[in-house]
């Protein structure tokens, strides 16, 4: 239905390219408001242009006062009154549409939904996949893998200030409050990578606080989950063994976790499977050798104010460390 959508906006970070029922409801409401306001705008402009065209021979002259009598008064009353009724009806249509959308979003099935925990941090996203068996709980960062066609319950909160979870292709914005749990029910119906962004100003690097929602088939998702639940790879080559030593003997170990090693801090993102992620620093840099090295040496030159301190190490140490991090698939 043409009226239900606004066509012509592909992209992986737009509410006009919905990939799930929740976003579809939101887009329908947007389309309703868009088409109503766009038609009113065009009608008003058209009326203005017609009037100017009809009176163009008398432009520049003082207009004659309009002759009024009882019947022209009544006609003017009817026209103005009619326009007012149309305006009220349209505004009510928008209002009722918005109630219907809100109700549809609120009544999405949360009982059978798959739960994912999301924690907002300054300035990154911590993602947990809880499991009844604690050793199968998966912790990752800035990348939400989700199964296609399954209702999802995003159970969100914040670890510091107010953040807002927003993946426009999938759902609307929802604030994450410190000390308060928020539930968002959503579903993704198409596989793909959809970009999300913090939508509530949360400090210096708010704009650099993005994440990716990676929707994949149930089978691929379960495989991914199984891989993520494993411990980190043991370093094999001499270089990566040295790299692990660098990690454990430098400041890294104060804030990061690599499961399977002595590093178990929860201040920064879990790095157990860092190399399986496509970006680092909350979507700021592609996960490449160069950007890892740059980020480790001086994250403050990339994301000033972020919690990652500048780290001084020799070229060899850095090379070994990055080589080790790149084995953490």
């Amino acid at each position, binding site marked *: 239905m043409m009226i239900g959508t606004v066509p012509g906006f592909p992209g992986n970070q737009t509410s006009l390219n919905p990939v799930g029922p929740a976003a579809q409801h939101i887009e329908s409401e947007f389309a309703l408001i868009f088409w109503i306001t766009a038609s009113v705008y065009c009608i008003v402009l058209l009326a203005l242009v017609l009037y100017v065209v009809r009176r163009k021979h008398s432009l520049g002259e003082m207009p004659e006062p309009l002759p009024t009598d009882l019947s022209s008064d009544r006609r003017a009353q009817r026209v103005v009154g009619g326009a007012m009724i149309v305006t009220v009806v349209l505004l009510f249509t928008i209002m009722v549409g918005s109630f219907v959308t809100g109700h549809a979003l609120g009544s999405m099935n949360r009982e059978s939904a798959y739960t994912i925990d999301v924690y907002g941090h300054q300035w990154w996203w911590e993602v947990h996949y809880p499991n009844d068996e604690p050793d199968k709980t998966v912790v990752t960062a800035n990348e939400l893998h989700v199964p296609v066609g399954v209702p999802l319950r995003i159970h969100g909160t914040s670890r510091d200030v107010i953040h807002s979870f927003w993946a426009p292709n999938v759902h609307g914005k929802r604030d994450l409050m410190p000390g308060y749990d928020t539930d968002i029910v959503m579903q993704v119906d198409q596989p793909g990578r959809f970009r999300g962004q913090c939508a509530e100003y949360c400090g210096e690097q708010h704009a650099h606080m993005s994440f990716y929602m990676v929707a994949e088939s149930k089978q691929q998702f379960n495989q991914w989950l199984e891989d993520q639940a494993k411990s980190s790879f043991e370093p094999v080559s001499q270089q990566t063994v040295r790299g692990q030593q660098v990690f454990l*003997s430098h*400041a890294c170990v*104060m804030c990061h976790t690599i499961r399977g090693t002595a590093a178990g801090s929860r201040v920064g993102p879990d790095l157990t499977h860092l190399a399986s992620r496509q970006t680092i620093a909350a979507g700021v840099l592609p996960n490449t050798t160069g950007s890892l090295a740059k980020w480790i040496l001086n994250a403050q030159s990339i994301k000033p104010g972020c919690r990652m*301190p*500048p780290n001084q190490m020799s070229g060899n140490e850095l090379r070994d460390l990055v080589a080790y991090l790149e084995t953490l698939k």
Partner: protein
Amino acid sequence: MKPIAFISILATALVLAGCKREQRVFDPGPSGSKIANGVAVNEVHAGGPLTVPDHGAYDQSAYAVGEGKRLFSAFNCVGCHNHGGGGIGPALMDAEWIYGSHPEQIYSSIVQGRPDGMPSFAGKIPDYQVWELVAYVRSLSGQLPADVAPGRSDEIQVKKAEQAKKEEHPPDETPQPMEKEKP
């Protein structure tokens, strides 16, 4: 415009011009971000009083003290010292200091570690973060001016904010001249 309105707008503008935004140092440069390794601290100071190295930037900056407060939880200082009240480790909000209350003494307690439980953080945290922790630890006993000390906690409030803490006087430390000027 009425002259009175004009004058009050001008006066407001002049007053606002006097405001200064605190500069936040995100990148402390090579010297600040070097990893803190053992420093020698003298308990006895031959030939005059202790000269205090330049750490003023940290205990004069609300941002640095706030970061210190965050790191105090992040690095699990709270695990032993709680939020200043002590527990496994000694309390940090009173006037008693086993290893000294001067900034550089607290610095070495953190970096070198102390017997019976205080771990050494040498080689693990950058210099500037140690100084941020030092500044925060001193604010716990009211050693920092109120405009620098943190104003509220995210945890359950069991004590007054650092900002409202009355200054404790460690026996070996003369009160800051700033405190004396208070009415």
